[in-house]
Structures are given as structure tokens and as C-alpha cells.
């Protein structure tokens, strides 16, 4: 590794401490455990304050829409008595077109309050648009660092659109080729500018999503008399699941099932220059969803506020072709032309709703804007141009990076359950590995691991015992 990279990484702790405006060391309890709730509360903003900050920034109070046509479509092929009512929270109505505005608004508010001159975020997704837009309103400078191109300088059209929209909002966009060294360059920029690190994984960002879970529970109660039975959340880094679930709990919706959903991109390497443009989804996929759920502290903050495994009751995967089909169906049946991320959860929700009784209520908690580059036609044309086969047929035959198989009938949309037990084992193994060889977990550690994996002490102890034998 270069001297330049080594030198900046050696100063990571010092740079991030200043750039995050918070010393994470105060929350550490042991090599495994930390005080998660203390970290989440450290910014001092109540949910009421968060909602007020967001409304002032054009964020939140998005429409909750019942999808009657899609519901009837599902009921037309569900078993008798089945086919849950389907709803969507139209988060595309936020300022910059996605729920990421909720995350950005709180970071930007904090940056302004703390007197930072600007903010920096490393993101190729909607978060960049959200940070750029909120920064513009707050008169703050903004740098967005994006993994944008492969080594041929060919960009995924969705990411190119994100570059465009960030620049439209006056951000400086730093576009890089594929590689995890993006992080060390972000550190250099933080060091050079003294800006706030508007990390996706800070407590600000995750607290900002709590308003979404809270809002939809309140709105569903007003509309149907109760919180939803199920909320489906597109899952990547874990913030969406975490913030939404925490907001549901705050609204008292403790019996609502939280179902995370990702596009299956198994087999594709996320740091591979050649795989980079062979995927039609830049986020909301298993390439982020699995590693972040099973080791959240791989993020750009010392402790990740997004801890999806803590909150998910189920994890469903769908194929790229199924999401494109549902995207088209939603536009034609519901008049909602929206982007791929939210529609990942919609594809999973259609499969889920089919198997639930008619009185169940399923809320897809986000949509995102679409347009040139992000649109499903653009994605499918790009996939073809990059040698990926696109055809109609049975979506179970699709191979990520090689083929996209678009269903011929809605009955073919069948989400798959990802084994949460396997994810919990993987998480515990990662936690033990990071604690160091020979470290013996205390009872406090066991309790932390149980909470962090949404299980119990007995299950965690069984996993640890099995790992020792292996």
C-alpha cells in the first residue's frame, strides 16, 4: 500500500473524531459491547425536534397511498382469503427525491449548529442528492465522493444521474474509479477542509429515519385503525431498517413485523472493476445488505448506528428482473413511476402480501425518484450493452451479472427468505474475531450480542459454543 494511503489511515481516529464532532470512545464497554442507546441519544435531539427540523427543510410528511389496483391484482391469484392490503409511503416526495433526505437533514442541521463550514459524504446513492440539497438550503459547502466509473471510464447510468443531481444542487462531486480506497481519499478531504463527515451511519442519520417509521404507524392507525401488520424495507447498509423499526417502536407499533428486502446479487464482487457495471442495482442489494447486517462496524464511523440485524424479523431477497417487472407494474397500475430502490421492497411486498390473509396490511415504506439513468429502461439497456442477457421467463433462472430474467406473470414474483440464523452466527463470529484471539465474552457481552442479533442469551451462547468446537 502506498505511503500516502498508510499515512492518512494512520490518522483516521484523530480525523474522524473531529469530523464527526463526537468521541465514540465514551460508549465503549468492552472489546465487544458498547452502549448503543447512549450513542443514539448523544446528539440530544428529540423526535419532535427532528420532525420540526425536517419539516423546515422540506422533508417528511410524505403521502401514504393505498395501492388498490396492485392489491386486487395480487388477490386475483392468491389463495382464497389471502392477499393483504398494500400501501406505500411516497418518499420520492421529499426535497431531493428519497427518504435519504431524512438522514441528511439532521446531519446538516448539526453541521450548521456546530459551526462547520461544509459537509462531506461518500456515497454513490440518493444520499448524495439529499446531502447536497440540504447543504444548499443551509448555505454549507458540500463534497460528495462517488465510486462512479469502471477503469474504462464507463459509469453506471444510475450513478451518473446521481453525479448530475448533486452538481445540480451545487455540490463538488469527486468521481472515482472502483475501489475501497475511496475511504482514504475521503479522509484526506476531511483533513484538508475541516468539514463534518455526514456519514450515512452516524446517529444523526439514523435518528432522522425514525420519523419515517413513526409517521407511517400514525398514518396507518388513522387510516385503518391500527399500525400495519408488516412493513417492508429495502435493505443495504442497514440504516433504513434500523431507523424505520426504531420509529415504529416509538409509535408503539411493537407487533408490526419488520421485513427487510434486498436484490439478490450473490456471486458479484463489490470491489471488482469488471463486476461493477454488470449489476443493474447500485444499492438495496445483498452485496451491501449481507455484509453490513453481519458486521455493521465495517462502516466509516467507529460504531455504526445502523444495526439492521437488531431489528429485522425477516430478510427477503428478490431478483433484478422481478424488481423491474414490479417497477413497470406500479407505473401502469398505480400511476407511480418510481426508482428501483423502493421497488425492491415493493417486489418483496407483493410476494409477502400474497401469502398473508386479506385483513393484513403491508406498507412499503419508501419510494425514490426516477428519471434518465435511474429508469428501468435505462438500466436494462445498459445491462444489455454490458453483455448481460435480458429475457422474459422464470426469474429463478437468473444469474446476477450474467442474466436478468423478467417474469412473464405476476405469480412468478416469489421472494426468498434469507436464513436469519445463518446471519446471526456470522455476526457473532465477526464480533468475536474483532475482539481479538482468546477474548472471553462476559455476560454483558452476551447480552449485547443477543440484543444486536435480535435473539436471546441462550442462542448466543449456543452459537459461541458451536464456534469453539468448529
Amino acid at each position, binding site marked *: 500500500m502506498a505511503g500516502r494511503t498508510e499515512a492518512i489511515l494512520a490518522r483516521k481516529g484523530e480525523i474522524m473524531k473531529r469530523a464527526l464532532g463526537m468521541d465514540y470512545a465514551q460508549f465503549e464497554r468492552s472489546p465487544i459491547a458498547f452502549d448503543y442507546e447512549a450513542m443514539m441519544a448523544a446528539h440530544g435531539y428529540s423526535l419532535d425536534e427532528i420532525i420540526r427540523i425536517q419539516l423546515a427543510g422540506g422533508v417528511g410528511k410524505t403521502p401514504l397511498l393505498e395501492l388498490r389496483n396492485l392489491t386486487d391484482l395480487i388477490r386475483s391469484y392468491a389463495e382464497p382469503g389471502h392477499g393483504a392490503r398494500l400501501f406505500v409511503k411516497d418518499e420520492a416526495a421529499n426535497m431531493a427525491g428519497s427518504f435519504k433526505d431524512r438522514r441528511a437533514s439532521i446531519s446538516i442541521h448539526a453541521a450548521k449548529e456546530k459551526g462547520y463550514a461544509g459537509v462531506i459524504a461518500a456515497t454513490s446513492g440518493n444520499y448524495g442528492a439529499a446531502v447536497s440539497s440540504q447543504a444548499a438550503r443551509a448555505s454549507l459547502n458540500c463534497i460528495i465522493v462517488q465510486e462512479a466509473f469502471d477503469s474504462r471510464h464507463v459509469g453506471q*447510468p444510475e450513478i451518473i444521474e446521481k453525479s448530475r443531481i448533486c452538481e445540480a444542487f451545487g455540490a463538488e462531486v469527486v468521481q472515482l474509479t472502483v475501489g475501497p480506497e475511496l475511504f482514504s481519499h475521503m479522509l484526506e478531504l476531511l483533513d484538508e477542509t475541516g468539514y463534518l463527515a455526514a456519514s450515512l451511519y452516524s446517529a444523526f442519520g439514523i435518528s432522522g429515519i425514525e420519523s419515517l417509521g413513526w409517521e407511517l404507524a400514525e398514518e396507518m392507525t388513522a387510516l385503518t385503525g391500527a399500525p400495519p401488520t408488516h412493513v417492508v424495507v429495502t435493505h443495504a447498509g442497514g440504516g433504513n431498517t434500523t431507523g424505520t423499526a426504531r420509529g415504529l417502536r416509538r409509535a408503539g407499533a411493537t407487533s408490526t413485523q419488520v421485513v427487510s428486502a434486498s436484490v439478490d446479487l450473490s456471486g458479484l464482487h463489490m470491489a471488482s472493476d469488471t463486476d461493477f457495471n454488470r449489476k443493474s442495482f447500485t444499492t438495496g442489494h445483498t452485496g451491501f445488505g449481507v455484509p453490513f447486517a453481519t458486521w455493521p462496524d465495517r462502516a466509516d464511523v467507529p460504531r455504526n448506528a445502523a444495526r439492521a440485524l437488531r431489528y429485522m424479523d425477516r430478510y427477503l431477497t428478490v431478483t433484478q428482473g422481478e424488481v423491474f417487472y414490479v417497477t413497470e407494474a406500479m407505473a401502469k397500475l398505480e400511476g407511480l413511476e418510481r426508482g428501483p430502490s423502493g421497488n425492491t421492497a415493493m417486489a418483496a411486498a407483493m410476494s409477502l402480501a400474497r401469502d398473508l390473509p386479506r385483513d393484513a396490511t403491508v406498507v412499503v415504506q419508501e419510494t425514490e425518484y426516477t428519471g434518465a439513468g435511474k429508469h428501468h429502461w435505462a438500466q436494462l439497456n445498459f445491462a444489455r450493452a454490458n453483455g448481460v442477457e435480458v429475457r422474459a421467463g422464470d426469474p429463478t433462472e437468473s444469474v446476477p451479472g450474467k442474466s436478468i430474467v*423478467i417474469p412473464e406473470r405476476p405469480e412468478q414474483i416469489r421472494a426468498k427468505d434469507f436464513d436469519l440464523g445463518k446471519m446471526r452466527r456470522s455476526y457473532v463470529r465477526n464480533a468475536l474475531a474483532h475482539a481479538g484471539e482468546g477474548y472471553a465474552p462476559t455476560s454483558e457481552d452476551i447480552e449485547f450480542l443477543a440484543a444486536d442479533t435480535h435473539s436471546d442469551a441462550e442462542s448466543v451462547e449456543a452459537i459461541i459454543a458451536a464456534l469453539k468446537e468448529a
Partner: protein
Amino acid sequence: MEDTTRCAPGDWVEVESVLLEPADRATNLPEDTAAQPLRMWVKGFARTAAAVGDELTVETMTGREVTGTLSEVNPGYFHTFGKPAPELTAVGRDLRARVAAYRKAGG
């Protein structure tokens, strides 16, 4: 016609640079990525006149100075929608018909 090969001071341009040569990259990369340099593109206002391929310093939107080789003058965006995917064109028609049939049958 606009000259796209040269910029004047103050023009909005893009510069390209290499952040890391292959030998200097992270050690845990897949082979295909490891064989390539980490490249960077940044846009800003040109400090001086230059021709594409010349070294140039720009002032970015945040006021930073970034030096690289001039890669584009007045860079634009050309991503689009393209042609409809034939696999999707009948989805709307077919699903509307199915919903209508379900409702007609009293569903």
C-alpha cells in the same frame, strides 16, 4: 462553434488525475481492480487557459484547488432512458386486463 478542446480562464471544466498507481493500491483487491490505477475526475473553474491533455488547476464549487489534466471543457450529462424493454411493454396492458377481469368476476 464552441471549441471543446481548449478552455479559457474561468471556464467550467473537468480535470482527471491518478490518485493511486496499481502498485500503491490496497492489498485486498480483486485482481481486475488491483491491475488498474485509482483515477479521479473533478469539475471546477479553470484557473488558466489550457488544451485538453494539459495540466490545469481548477477551483471547485467549495473553493478547493485541484490539479489534473484537462479532460473536458463544459462537461455535460448524456444519460437517458433509451428504448423500452420489449420484455416489459405488455405488462401494463396485461395487468390492467387481469385487474378488470377480477373485479368483473366480483373479486
